[in-house]
């Protein structure tokens, strides 16, 4: 399949790999890499070929509910077959999903977040989704880095600059733990504000990217808590101000229960995304643009 362009090819020959940099050492556990594991910067090309994927980045700190979010997503797709009009067709990373389900279950039983260093090497999950039972099939990529990665990004712009998946994301979902926010409002607001500024400085928001905020574990906060609602608005406004982008929507979810609120987020994540180029109105997203540039050069 020499004609197929992978992500690394598409991004140019000067950039050999897509890094998910971190100042902490990442330990790959070689004997735990199974068939169908999550993908990484080195093998994502095997999945993409020359098709244009929709890239969703789940950004958030340790314990903010990203793992539970993706676990419930695959659970819903495998047991009901669809979310809205998005039908499950395939995944190249079933083991990656199952690993996350395993970790979530350990956490739920021990009520204690465990170490997850071995996950950092494989953070890209894939889904092939079809519109209706007969419609067009699209490729969805979910970037599910560990929270430690974003802790490092918060303090180091260079690391953010090197993350090409983040640079070419179609959507970013910022995960905020409602309980953590309730207990450490100032710290969390400061952290997300600074992280968003790093993103902004690195040019993450320059393209046609949608930004969403997901408030997780909302079931653990009283609905009547007016202070919480007001304060949550302050953190979303802070992210909006730092990014210079409108937050398209703030979702309030309990990721353990796949109710209508959570399904609305999943439906958004599984949507196709055709963006408009700023100059000529052509409907292309970033990979298509780069492909065109490559063709122009040849």
């Amino acid at each position, binding site marked *: 399949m020499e004609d197929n362009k992978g992500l690394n090819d598409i991004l140019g020959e000067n950039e050999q790999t897509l890094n998910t940099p971190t100042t902490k050492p990442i330990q790959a556990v070689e004997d735990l890499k199974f068939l169908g594991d999550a993908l990484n910067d080195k093998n994502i090309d095997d999945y993409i070929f020359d098709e244009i994927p929709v890239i969703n980045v789940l950004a958030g700190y340790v314990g903010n509910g990203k793992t539970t979010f993706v676990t419930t997503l695959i*659970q819903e797709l*495998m047991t009901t077959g669809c979310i809205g009009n998005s039908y499950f067709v395939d995944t190249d990373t079933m083991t990656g999903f199952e690993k996350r389900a395993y970790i979530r279950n350990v956490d739920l039983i021990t009520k204690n977040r465990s170490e997850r260093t071995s996950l950092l090497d494989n953070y890209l999950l894939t889904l092939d989704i079809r519109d209706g039972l007969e419609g067009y099939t699209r490729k969805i990529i979910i970037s599910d880095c560990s929270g430690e990665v974003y802790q490092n990004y918060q303090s180091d712009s260079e690391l953010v600059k090197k993350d090409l998946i983040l640079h070419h994301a179609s959507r970013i979902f910022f995960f905020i733990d409602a309980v953590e926010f309730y207990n450490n409002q100032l710290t969390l607001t400061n952290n997300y504000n600074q992280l968003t500024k790093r993103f902004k400085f690195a040019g993450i928001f320059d393209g046609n990217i949608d930004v969403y905020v997901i408030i997780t574990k909302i079931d653990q906060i009283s609905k009547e808590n007016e202070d919480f609602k007001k304060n949550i608005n302050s953190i979303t406004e802070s992210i909006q101000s730092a990014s210079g982008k409108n937050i398209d929507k703030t979702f309030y979810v309990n990721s353990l229960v796949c109710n209508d609120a959570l399904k609305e987020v999943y439906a958004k994540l599984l949507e196709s995304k055709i963006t408009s180029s700023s100059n000529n109105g052509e409907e292309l997203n970033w990979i298509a643009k780069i492909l065109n540039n490559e063709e122009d050069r040849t």
Partner: protein
Amino acid sequence: MKKKCLIVGIPESGKSTYIASLWYSVKTYAKCSLTASDNMPDNTRYLDRLVEAWLSFEKLRTSDDITDQIEFNLKDKETGDEFTVMVPDFKGETFLQILKGASNSELQRWLGEVESVILMIKDLEFVKFNPIEENQESRTNSDGKKIDAIAGFSIDSMSGASKNLLLLKYLKANMDIKKLIICVTAWDQIDNMSSSKDFFKRSSVGLYQFIMNNFEEVEFYGLSAQGVDYPSEEANDEEKRIFKDNLISDTSKCKRSYVIEGTKKIFDVTLPLKKAIL
């Protein structure tokens, strides 16, 4: 004419039990759609061992990959055509090892030679909460450092639906599958009135959609090769005797092993094989 068919499945999905009931059926039951031709294969030692265990109501487990000793010389009852079918009996652990990233040269050779696959599936579920060992409550080691949770993960921790999806993806990537026959095994344990296809879809819709979108010719069967669940060790002698008498009677009258084709119960386990090779 020689035909080859690959029977695949994760451990305890019923591969060897099916081969045992198949060998007994083609030799014994004249009403089966495939019957043994008069020309017996030269070596049936392995098949005979399987049948002996099946007739003695012993649970069958394959300890080694048997890839060159299983030949059926068969006759199509409908057309009278005679042919030889070669069916390897790879142990379930071999397929599990494949999911763990291992390679198997013998399996790889077979993948290059066959075009039809019979997949045995017993566990269709995509579990919400995987079983976690109780001792994982202890999250620290002797140095007081946290233990990496993912280190406890293995392919065995995964759901049946996921293992089978991965197995099918592996086969699809390594061979040209013209026909895929899905057999939901231990059908006698399933309380179901709908067709085997509907049951499969209802039980594991994600896996069903994956199959229907990735394979062109697919057939679904319910299969009970063993016929009934064997009595537990705790059963008393009288219960065991009654069970044995009933099963001897059913086996003699061709009422033990059966398939579900559509919604119809048919005492002919050769149907999935016939569908696969003809």
